[in-house]
């Protein structure tokens, strides 16, 4: 087995990963997007507009909250970067507002998006409502079932939710349908990808828009401790909250950990792409991928819909191979335990996705030395998960 790997150093590549592996029909749109992004990102007016929205509409900067009781339990000094307190309850809004501003500059008034847990769909619908744009969100039927509340929220915000009943009926196939829609209506539509995945320039655009997380966290560290943290940790599905947190610390002596979903266990159904996948091409980029020996993409599994994806952002693949970030995987049961303990010990109900990052710190033997000052990206709030966790636990208690 040898994956085809072009020479690194080309634009749009992170080492051997990334690129734009799409039908020819989309190439002009990616070129157009790259140009529009370069112009916007170097334009102070764009930043002024985005920063104002992040401050007044989203509520940034998000606090860095000490978690004393969870720290005592974990044996490390835990500080939560509170993306759960953003408007719409997750980090996703950082990206969608930026991309919708970009779409307005490109004159595209129809927006599409894929969503897994529904957080990106809600954040996209929110940005579209704010700017009066048409919004269509693709979501697998497995996810519309387990995240029914978010489906209603999107519709309330005026978005059309298209239920995708093909393939795995989760994020992977929702993304396929979004790309099919984009191929069909590319001349009038902007596709707001929700993570650091997809063809170039998306992984870079989404990273830059999410890097506000790490920029703030770094500044908050220096302000609070006059020092950097010892470690930073975040969950990884596609990996946007993790890249957003990590990017400001890449050149610092800060240990970085990405936590994937081990689902039912690494030898059963899981979503631990970096731990168990091998390089391949899905949704327009070369990256690690869960696939069989013939190159068919495997269905992923995680209790967290937002991590239930067989691919991962190409920059994470490069960070894994370079060794700068350590990736590990936490299973459904560990994540559920962390979901409960964070709620009980800190009065904060985390998204089941974010609970994976916390769970890695609760493990024995410990991941980090006693007292290590650790920033955890609390990427979203857990309200969306309450119903499905209750149903899951009700069912197992009834047995």
């Amino acid at each position, binding site marked *: 087995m040898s994956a085809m790997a072009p020479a690194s150093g080309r634009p749009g590549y992170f080492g051997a990963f990334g690129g734009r592996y799409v039908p020819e029909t989309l190439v002009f749109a990616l070129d157009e997007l790259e140009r529009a992004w370069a112009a916007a990102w170097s334009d102070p007016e764009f930043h002024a507009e985005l920063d104002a929205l992040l401050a007044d509409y989203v509520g940034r900067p998000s606090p860095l909250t000490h978690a004393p009781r969870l720290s005592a339990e974990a044996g490390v000094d835990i500080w939560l970067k509170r993306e759960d307190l953003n408007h719409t309850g997750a980090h996703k809004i950082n990206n969608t507002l930026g991309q919708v501003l970009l779409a307005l500059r490109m004159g595209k008034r129809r927006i599409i998006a894929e969503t897994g847990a529904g957080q990106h769909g809600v954040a996209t619908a929110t940005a579209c409502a704010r700017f009066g744009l048409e919004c269509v969100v693709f979501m697998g039927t497995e996810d519309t079932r387990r995240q029914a509340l978010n489906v209603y929220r999107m519709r309330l915000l005026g978005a059309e939710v298209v239920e995708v009943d093909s393939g795995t009926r989760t994020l992977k196939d929702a993304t396929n349908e979004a790309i099919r829609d984009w191929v069909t209506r590319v001349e009038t539509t902007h596709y707001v990808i929700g993570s650091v995945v997809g063809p170039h320039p998306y992984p870079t655009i989404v990273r830059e828009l999410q890097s506000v997380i790490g920029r703030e966290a770094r500044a908050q560290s220096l302000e609070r401790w006059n020092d950097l943290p010892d470690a930073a940790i975040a969950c990884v599905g596609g990996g946007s909250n993790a890249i957003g947190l990590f990017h400001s610390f890449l050149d610092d002596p800060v240990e970085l950990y990405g936590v994937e979903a081990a689902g039912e266990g690494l030898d059963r159904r899981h979503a631990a792409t970096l731990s168990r996948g091998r390089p391949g091409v*899905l949704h327009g980029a070369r990256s690690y991928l869960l696939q069989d020996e013939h190159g068919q993409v495997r269905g992923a599994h995680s209790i967290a819909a937002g991590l239930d994806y067989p691919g991962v952002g190409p920059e994470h693949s490069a960070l894994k191979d370079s060794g700068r970030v350590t990736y590990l995987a936490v299973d459904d049961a560990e994540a559920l335990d962390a979901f409960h303990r964070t709620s009980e010990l800190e009065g904060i109900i985390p998204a089941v996705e974010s609970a994976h990052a916390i769970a890695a710190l609760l493990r024995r033997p410990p991941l980090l030395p006693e007292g290590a000052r650790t920033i955890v990206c609390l990427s979203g709030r857990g309200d969306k998960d309450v119903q499905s966790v209750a149903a899951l636990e009700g069912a197992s208690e009834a047995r």
Partner: protein
Amino acid sequence: MSHAASSRGNLRRLMDARAGGRKLLVPFLTAGYPDRKTCAEALAGLADAGADAIELGVPFSDPLADGPVIAAASELAIAGGTSIEDAFDLAAGYVRAGADRPPLVLFTYLNPAASLGPDRLAEACADAGFAAALVADLPYDEDPAVAAALARRGLPLIRLAAPTTPAERLAELARGAEGFVYLIARTGTTGAGAGTDARVAEQVAVIRANTDLPVVVGFGIGDTESARRAARLADGVVVGSAFVERLGRDGPAAAVGWMRTLRDALDRPVSV
């Protein structure tokens, strides 16, 4: 090896056919759909139904350029255990039965091909007797490894052009093309839906200004009328979803019979 050599040479037949005033007919079918035996029968039938070349599709779990018909065919073929290796087996069987049959083009997404690696992909294509390969999600300028490996085996990587490809890019695409150029008739996925004749004509003009190779038009060609219309704008047509749908529903004999009606329609003189 001799099979492979003759099959490769066969792609030149497209030029000869065009020179003789014939409109090219290129059916597409998914390997292993509805099952491998039926697929082999359909391939054999198409060889005698007036096809000028045949695209054999590798089923992929995430066929994002495909509409519902071919996506469903892929899913069923994969469920039946078909992989890229079966596409090679089907091709080898087809070529063995008659070395001067219409040339076969391997149609795949990148991941099943990348899973083999470029050299094994090229070697397997050549050994099976494919005359060329086409990768649906690999723009011509993205990653030279596949084209280079195929070239070492004497096989062209067919280039796809889109209605949205800007003129300058289209010219470059055409200048470096080999075998033939596949022009997508409209924005969208494979299957039903009409393109804009004006846009197709514009793109064909740019391609022709930059290459002598035949230009075939695909996507959304589902009946004799649309086939004749598209063929008037270019050198021929690719017919995929409409054939795959009939193959699944009516069986190989009926589907091949229908393809013959397209052949007849393309051969009828243009009415005034």
